[in-house]
Every structure is written in structure tokens, then in C-alpha cells.
């Protein structure tokens, strides 16, 4: 067993308020010393510019998918990740970011110029509607205990 191998993780955000990202940065308060030794932050825009976007053990994906472009990016993340975890309500159930899916026709008409100008998808999707999801961490923001449980599970699995 190679004890020095770090878990290669990515943290990605799509359409959402990024509350789970904030919870993640708050979890660093208690875990940064341990995670520095155990985790390789390969792609994590909130804390670094470097983007080593390949061979990821686990990708944590926050937010819902609002455009074709986002859908393609998510598929790329899936293709370089052994495991993919949907994080927070928007990723897991598509809401509240997908609230426009339930707008009535008159409101859709009102927002349509924006939808057209920036190539929004007709419907906002949860992550599992686009790619295979291995685990989910529900909550708005994400459930901290569940996050730690899943992270620790993968730390053991990929050791």
C-alpha cells in the first residue's frame, strides 16, 4: 500500500449560489492540516489557478446545468473522473437554480431575450440528468457530515 498517494480531487461549480463551496472552505478551518497531506487539489478554482484537469479520483460537482456548454463541460469532468459526486440541492435535485423550469409562459416570454442571447438550455437539469453520479450530498447548503463521510470513504477506497 502506497501511504503517500494523495486522493486527486476536483471541485466544480455550475449554476448555483456556491453555498457548498463556502461550506467546503469552512471545513478547511478544522481539516486543512489533514487535507494538505491527503488531498491533491487538482482542479479547484475557488482556491487556486492551477488546473490539472486529468486522472481525477473524485470530482465534487455543485450546481445545476443551465446550458449546452455547461453540459459538455460536465461530460468532460465525468470522462476524467473515476467517481463523481453531486453536491448540494441544485446539483442533486436541480433546485432552486432550475426554478425557471416551472415559470408560466408569460414569464418565460419575459426572460426569453436573455435565454436566447446567452444560449441557455430550454430546461435546467440536475447533474444525474446529464452524467452518471456515484454519490450525492444533499442539502442547501450541503450536509457537512455527509460530505466528510463520502470523502473519508474515498480516501480509504483509493488508498
Amino acid at each position, binding site marked *: 500500500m502506497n501511504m503517500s498517494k494523495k486522493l486527486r480531487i476536483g471541485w466544480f461549480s455550475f449554476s448555483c*449560489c456556491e453555498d457548498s463551496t463556502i461550506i467546503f472552505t*469552512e471545513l478547511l478551518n478544522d481539516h486543512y492540516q489533514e487535507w494538505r497531506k491527503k488531498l491533491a487539489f487538482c482542479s479547484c478554482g475557488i482556491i*487556486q489557478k492551477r488546473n490539472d484537469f486529468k486522472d481525477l479520483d473524485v470530482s465534487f460537482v455543485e450546481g445545476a446545468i443551465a446550458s449546452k456548454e455547461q453540459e459538455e463541460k460536465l461530460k468532460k469532468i465525468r470522462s476524467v473522473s473515476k467517481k463523481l459526486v453531486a453536491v448540494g440541492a441544485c446539483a442533486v435535485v436541480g433546485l432552486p437554480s432550475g426554478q*425557471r423550469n416551472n415559470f408560466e409562459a408569460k414569464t418565460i416570454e*419575459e*426572460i426569453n431575450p436573455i435565454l436566447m442571447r446567452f444560449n441557455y438550455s430550454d430546461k435546467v437539469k440536475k447533474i444525474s440528468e446529464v452524467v452518471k453520479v456515484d454519490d450525492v450530498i444533499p442539502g*442547501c447548503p450541503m450536509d457537512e457530515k455527509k460530505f466528510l463521510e463520502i470523502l473519508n470513504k474515498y480516501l480509504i477506497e483509493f488508498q
Partner: protein
Amino acid sequence: MHSFDLNIGELSKIEGKASLTIKVENGEVKECRFKIDEFKRFYTQAIRGKDILALPQLTSRICGTCSNAHLLCAIKAVEDAQKIQPTPQTEALRKLLNFGLIIRDHALHLYIFVMPDLLGVDNILELDENDPREHQILDDAFAIKAAGNNLSKVIGGRSVHAPFPMVGGFSKIPDEKSFTELIKELENIRSAVLRLIKIFQDDGSILERNTDFVALIDEEYSFLKGCIIKNDDVTIACQNYGAYLDKIVLPYSHAIGYKFMGRIHMIGALARLNLAKEKLNRRTKEEIKEVLKRFPSKNIFYNNLAQAIEILHAIDSSIEILSQLSIKEEKLVPIVRKEGIGVGVIEAPRGTLYYKLAINKEGKVINGDIVVPTGQNQIGIERSIYEYVKANVDKKREELINEIEKIIRAYDPCMSCASHFLRVKWL
């Protein structure tokens, strides 16, 4: 003469998604576009028909970073429309909740986003634990963030989308016994914050801009009350804000930009300190007399120093409130739903946040206007980048990119907030 295109895709170490396009031809900046790339989530439409009690928790989801600021501002607008007067205890608890946010949010920005630029690393976690100074910075970063987080948790039930603050009060009142521990933790991090102030005091970054400064100011630098002040010459009642803010559609950006009385303005910690440094907590002022002489300042990099100073002010003010507050059980102020228009204005960590709500007699939202800080700073950010590139076209590409990123981070933009809605015709 220099000609080049500069495209920065997803900017890192900021909240949300933004990008930048610059075109220089024969030494002249032909195009400079700072684009907010977050897809809109249409909260302005989604709030229509929502009950006034449900609204604050919904709009809190506009932004995970400053969710509690949205919560407090939405509550303030609803209470204004419904003529509800919160109790002094509720007001004190709201101040504490917001101070917790200021401490946590400014510390996140300064340590996680900005500090790597100062120390020549990409990620703060790369700092060397065997180097005493770097080790100290790491420990300070997470201790300060944790203290702000804990203050928000004790008062609001959670640091993000706090569940206890409600229209008319708090659904759960914090236990006064927990205050002793909070005071101890806040006292313990004061020395760390003084070290943080020193770091930004010694940072020599300069970009001076002739811009207006706007903030909500009151006598105690509470972030939650007062009048809107522009420079030293204009004072505006919160209710009238709409007459002074001009919406500017930027066709390439997902977010709307704003000017104030037709001019580019800057909001946030630098604006607040420029306009109200004498209203800081007394203990804070005594501790950092010399540093405060640097304000007012036109150097936008001093927004970082101003944030560090505001952390100390939030700590000292919180200690004062926690030491004096005698908690009693209080029920929520009862609501008799009525028709009306309500305005809420507060200072969120990144600047002035405005809510205007039209409510029908059943207590449902008919329409709403929400103006967030980053929307207001967006044009100023773009202009600052333009001015910097114009004066430095001969610099190497990497240096230009690094400096531009530092300028953007100095404004501490929040893209999730900025792209929450679509401009609508008001009523």
C-alpha cells in the same frame, strides 16, 4: 507599437465565474470587457407570488457567500412594507449575525483569494509549515474564519443560509451561556487580525482611481442602518435609492451594471472607510490610529486593507454587544399582512445591497428589485483594468495577467450575486 489580444477564461480565486477580453492595437486599448459569466437564475421572477415569510430564505439562495446579508436585507424590506418594528434584542442579534459574516467573508477573501498573490504561491495551502511566518499565516487564516463562522452559527443557527432570523425576530434565541466562549474566541483572534492589517499595510500595490464612493452610513458603523452617502456631498434616504442608481445593460455580460448619479462609483470596505472611519468602534480606532491616517484613499488596493480593518471593527463591536446583551425569551412580532412597498438597504461585505418589494394585501410579493454590490462595481472594475492596461501596454503578458487578476480580486467581486436576475420594469 504593441498590439495583442488578451483573453482570460475562468478567473480563479473569486466567487463565481467571470472572464476578460482585451484588445490592444498599436499601443491603444481598443476593447476591455469584464464579463460576468454566471447563468442567471431569475430570482426577480421567482419571488413573485411568494409569501413574505418565505421570501428571505429564498433570496438568501441568491448567494452562498453573503447569504446572511440577503437574508437580513430581505427581512428589512418586508418589515418596512409591513410596518414592523423589531425589538432592540432582535436588532442586536442581527448586528452580531452580520458581524460574523463580515469576519468570515473578509477573511475568506483576504487569506484564500488575495494572500497567495502577496506570497507568490498559487494556493494558500502551499505555504510552508516549517517557515514560522508562513505557518503563522496559515494558522491565523483558519482561526479568524472559524471565529466568524462560529459567531454566525451561535446567533443564526448556521453560517450559510442561517435558519433562525425571521421577519419580526428570531425563531430561536441563542443561549447567553455561549457568549462567554464567543467573547474568548474573538479576543483570541485580535492579535491575528492585527498581523493581517500589518500585512496589507505593508503591501505596496497601488492603483489610484478618481471615482465616487458610496455607502450606507450610521453613527456606529453597523452595516445595517443609516443613510446612503456619496463622497461628502450627497446624503440620500434609503427609500429614494432608485432615483440615483442608473442601470446599464452590458450586452456581453450576464449581469447588469450600475452607475450612481450618472458616474462610476465604488462600494465596499474602501468606500465605507473613506466615508466613515471616525465611526469605527472606539477600541479599533485606538489600536490602529496610524493605519487609519491612510484613509480616505483613492488606491483601490486599499479595499483589502479596509477589509482587514473592518474585521477588527466587527470583532470589537461584537465583543461589546455580547458583553452587554442580556438575553430574554421573545416571540416574533406578530404580522398583520397588508399591502405596501418596502425598501431594505444594508452594507453587505462587498458593498451596498438594495431590496425593494411590492407586496399585496395577502402578503404575497407582486414584484421586486434587488441591486447587489458586484453589479454596482462591475463598470468600475472594467474601467480600472482599462486604465491599468492603457498605462502598461509594454509589460509582459504574464505580468499583465497577474496584475489584472490582482485588480479584480481587490474589488472582491461576487458573480453569483450579480447574475441572479433580469431587469424588469418596476410596477
